[in-house]
């Protein structure tokens, strides 16, 4: 086993490296400090050679090493051939810890790697740490967000997935003299059973908007009706923000599933999060814990949401919001 932290560098459909890769790198550098500065490395699959642009990005984001495999069969992500080659690659590298984004791709790939290597994988972690024994302590919400559980793996690599926006990328670039290593993996026998026949880019950008929004006005069950959400839209518009929703609000049909924030929805980290009529179940709050400031408006003064809010206002959102809009 080589002592290093390996990160799966995901290439998106639009052929850029997914930002979660660099968020994981920033966290891995922090973890590495607690483990005698073991190297932080990336594994990337490319359809052609590693370009200077990609190299530059890895250098600037603090990677010590980058392992890559080039093969034209990697032009699109396909679970079977990617898994087969990734399992080979991870066996060769034999890292102590491996992290992947909890993206559609990462959540598809990571369990195949962990299964093949008979090791533990913890999904959707909200925090990662190194314990007294030098092991990866991966913490995640479980049971509908009722509880947080810290999970350890008996075997190596100790694996975890983390969603985008949970960790922050490095604030200042750390230029490293990154080593680029071409892995010797036989790709000639890779045959996929999967044929991607069509791809339509999402027209609605609400997902991306909510992921990167600086201001989010979110509503929960307390907003009661579509009219309630209209009020939120007006407030969001006034502030230059976007509208989000709790799981209950989505289940009640008040908001689109794309707007859902929380453990079963999106994880967000805006500068300002205004929670209106949201009780504050852990399943929701784990998705907003990284917001810079949280303002909560709720008629129940004992609502859990106030425990994580910077500012609280006890009152009926239907009365408060119109008055608030006038003053802004």
């Amino acid at each position, binding site marked *: 086993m080589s002592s290093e932290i390996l990160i799966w560098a995901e290439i998106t*459909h639009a052929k850029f490296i997914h930002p979660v890769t660099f968020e994981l790198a920033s966290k891995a550098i922090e973890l590495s400090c607690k483990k005698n500065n073991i190297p932080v490395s990336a594994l990337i699959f490319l359809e052609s050679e590693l370009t200077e642009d990609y190299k530059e990005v890895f250098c600037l984001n603090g990677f010590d090493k980058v392992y890559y495999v080039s093969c034209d069969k990697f032009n699109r992500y*396909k*679970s*079977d051939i990617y*898994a087969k080659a990734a399992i080979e690659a991870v066996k060769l590298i034999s890292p102590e810890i491996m992290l992947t984004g909890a*993206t*559609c791709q990462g*959540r*598809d790939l990571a*369990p195949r790697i*962990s*299964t093949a290597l008979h*090791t*533990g*994988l*913890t*999904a959707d972690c909200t925090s990662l740490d190194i*314990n007294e024994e030098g092991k990866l*302590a991966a913490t995640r*919400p*479980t*049971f*509908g967000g*009722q*509880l*947080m*559980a*810290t*999970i*350890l*793996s008996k075997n190596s690599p100790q694996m975890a997935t983390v969603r985008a926006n949970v960790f922050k990328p490095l604030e200042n670039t750390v230029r490293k003299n990154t080593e680029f290593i071409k892995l010797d993996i036989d790709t000639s026998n890779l045959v996929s*059973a*999967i*044929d*991607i*026949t*069509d*791809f339509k880019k*999402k027209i609605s950008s609400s997902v991306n908007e909510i992921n990167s929004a600086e201001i989010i006005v979110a509503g929960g069950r307390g907003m009661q009706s579509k009219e309630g959400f209209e009020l939120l839209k007006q407030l969001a518009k006034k*502030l230059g923000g976007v509208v989000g929703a709790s799981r209950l609000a989505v289940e009640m049909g008040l908001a689109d*599933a794309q707007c859902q924030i929380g*453990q*079963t929805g999106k994880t967000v980290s805006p*500068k*300002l999060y205004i929670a209106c009529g949201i009780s504050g179940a*852990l399943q929701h*709050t784990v998705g907003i*814990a990284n917001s*810079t*400031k*949280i303002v909560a408006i709720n008629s129940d003064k004992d609502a859990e949401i*106030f*425990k*994580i809010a910077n*500012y*609280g*206002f*006890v009152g009926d959102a239907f009365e408060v919001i119109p008055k608030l809009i006038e*003053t*802004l």
Partner: protein
Amino acid sequence: MKIILCIKQVPDTSDIKWTENNTIQREGLESILNPYDLYSLDSVVKLKQNNKDVRISAITMGPNQSEKVLRRAISVGVDEGVLLSDKKFSGADTYATGKTIASAIKSKLNDFDLIVCGQFAVDGDTAQTGPSIANFLDIPQITYVKEILDYQDDSITVLRELDEGIETVKVKLPALICMLKSDYETVRANINGIKKAQLAEITTYTIEDIGLQPEEAGLKGSPTYVSKAFRASGRDVTCEYLNDIKSLSEAIKTTGGTK
């Protein structure tokens, strides 16, 4: 076409109790069929309604009471129910669960074309068991499936809903798919279906039946373990309560909420 439908009975997550080993105390909890499995159930039953050659076996792992979800599946058109139940299965993580279900499929249901799972179970929310089963069986998997568009004897075509867009994928069988919420109308049981479900014989397999050793299943066979479980918000703040709209407005303005 032979389909294996993997379903899970999940506890009502509003009232959780934990054992000394930090695993879930499942006895005494209200149980429901995992909502994502409802969508996959709907989808395969729709396939069967359109083609009488489709045969569906539903499989679940859990305590004896889990047979309830199998009967529910039978009531809407699933042909048979298979329950994997053994004390030695308890405390399994996604690896051990994947191994147990894959071993049961290999030893008892090996003649299949398609395995269908829900994308997530709402209790664990890991989305790992489906891909893990696929890897143990060495078959391809397609996750985030929104809709089954077409199927032939040797392939299936599905729509995947991904972060970036909608992908149409054709995969050769055998394969495993994990399904998201579909737009299908939920299939309902009629009186005949309910009767059939009540009378159905549920096949139950123990660890010996599927050829696993005790150290390969359950808590012992799990590479992960819970070191602690706790309640936490993940934010260390004290709320400043505001009493009038003006101060609320000021607070919002100063925290970046000015256009």
